[in-house]
């Protein structure tokens, strides 16, 4: 039961913050000649370690700019740690921003295949789940319409339906439980809870301690790139609520 699925060991991530962002060759050459390139080092994550076992649901709490999204991106494999290592077992379904892989000139149907391909699935696998995805998104009538004519809610519904149609071992949620109207939101929360019952491992980012208490059974708090609390969800949420109220004073 206590088999580690996500193992984050001493992860640090360094960003070079440049005061003036130089993104063209002309300026770069001029600044190098004038010796005006200065970088400020910024550790977005600093020696972060934790493990999540199979079936555990870890809430990640923290203020804006604390490094939560950086952490999720590192676990999803988008960002590589400057130091330390990240190990993840099994298929990851990152739901960091729904619909990130859509092509707006493509129709809904074509986008299902494209999005699935972006997530690394084969054509056959997507074909098998195509009907299920369309049914869940309730967009049957719009499958031959280019995505650029979709509303943002329709896009998010389609994105959610594709991302959850697979059976991932690890689900990364970045405040995406606010998709579409109230009815669809209830439906999507139910789908995610169903996935919990199948023993999925979850990494959930939120500011909302109520939501975290409802969904997770463990939590960590990240502040200024460091883990400052790690443990049972209620204890950690109490600490976070206290931090928030102290901040208000």
């Amino acid at each position, binding site marked *: 039961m206590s088999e580690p699925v996500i*193992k984050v060991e001493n992860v640090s991530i360094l*960003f*070079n913050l440049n005061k003036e962002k130089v*993104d*063209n*060759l*002309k300026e*770069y050459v001029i600044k190098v000649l004038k010796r005006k390139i200065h970088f400020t080092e910024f550790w977005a994550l600093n020696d972060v370690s934790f493990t999540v076992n199979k079936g555990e649901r870890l809430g990640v709490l923290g203020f804006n700019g604390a490094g939560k999204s950086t952490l999720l*991106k590192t676990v*999803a*494999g*988008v*960002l*590589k*740690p400057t130091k330390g*290592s*990240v*190990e*993840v*077992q*099994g298929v*990851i379904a*990152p739901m*960091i*921003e729904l619909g*990130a*892989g859509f*092509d707006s*000139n*493509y129709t809904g149907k*074509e986008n299902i*295949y*494209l999005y699935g*391909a*972006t*997530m*690394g*699935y*084969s*054509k056959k696998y997507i074909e098998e789940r195509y009907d299920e995805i369309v049914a869940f998104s309730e967009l049957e009538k719009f499958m031959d319409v280019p995505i650029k004519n979709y509303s943002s809610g329709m896009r998010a519904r389609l994105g959610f339906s594709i991302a959850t149609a697979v059976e991932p071992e690890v689900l990364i949620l970045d405040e995406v439980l606010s998709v579409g109207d109230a009815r669809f939101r209830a439906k999507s929360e139910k789908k995610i809870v169903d996935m919990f019952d199948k023993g999925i491992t979850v990494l959930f980012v939120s500011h909302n301690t109520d939501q975290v208490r409802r969904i997770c059974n463990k939590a960590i708090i990240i502040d200024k790139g460091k883990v400052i609390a790690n443990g049972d969800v209620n204890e950690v949420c109490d600490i976070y609520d206290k931090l928030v109220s102290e901040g208000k004073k």
Partner: protein
Amino acid sequence: MLQKIKNSNFVQDFLKYRYLLSEIIRRNIKVQYRDSVLGIFWTFLQPLLSTLVLVAVFSNIFHNRTEYYPIYVLCGRLLYDFYSQATKRGMRSITTAAGVIKKVYVPKYIYPLGNTLSCFVTFLISLLVLVAFMIYFIIFKGMSLTPYVLLAIVPVLILYILSFGVGMILATMSVFFKDIEYLYEVFCMLLFYMTPVFYSVETLNISNSFIKMGLMANPLYSIVNLFRFCIIGTGTWNWGWFFYSFGFAIVTVIIGGLLFRAKEDKFILHI
């Protein structure tokens, strides 16, 4: 079994994401032609019109010295167009896929590879114009095919390897420096005049040997001439051209691959 994201395996990645590669190729081709009234016909019209103009303007100057001048120009034009389109698409492949790269883990080389390959497919379709021209010249102008026509695929493949290599170098550079795009646009225009598309270096009577060597050092010179030899069939198969352009393409692809691999983890911080 713990899968380390840190040392993701090249072959495993390729097998897992090969469907993405084919989707990218298909999407590029579809989207390119979907909104155009002329559709896929545009692929033929573009080289055809530019060839007509070049032939109309330059045939009096070069016609007497070059056999089958319209075919000569068309060969050069098609290959040059492929090179410039493939490298430009390759250059923009990472910046246009920024939305995906920032959110999901995807092996990044898929993008320059897919974008140059989709240009390659369009190029192969546009070769039908050349086939039509060849049929006309064989029937009415007495041009004859040689068995070398089967070897025409060799310079074409060399050109693809070169374009992919250049595409990876440009893709990496354009992530860090946005103005590379404009600089390359200028470079491509110069390259058009430095490539024997509508003239031939041999018949220009260039007295300065440095200029002549410079023109011949352009790998497109060897590739275009090898291709023309296969299509028109006059002259001999020049091994010098073959080894030079093939070597150039391989070295470029190795440099491009190493540069891309060294910098790909930093892409996300700049796009």
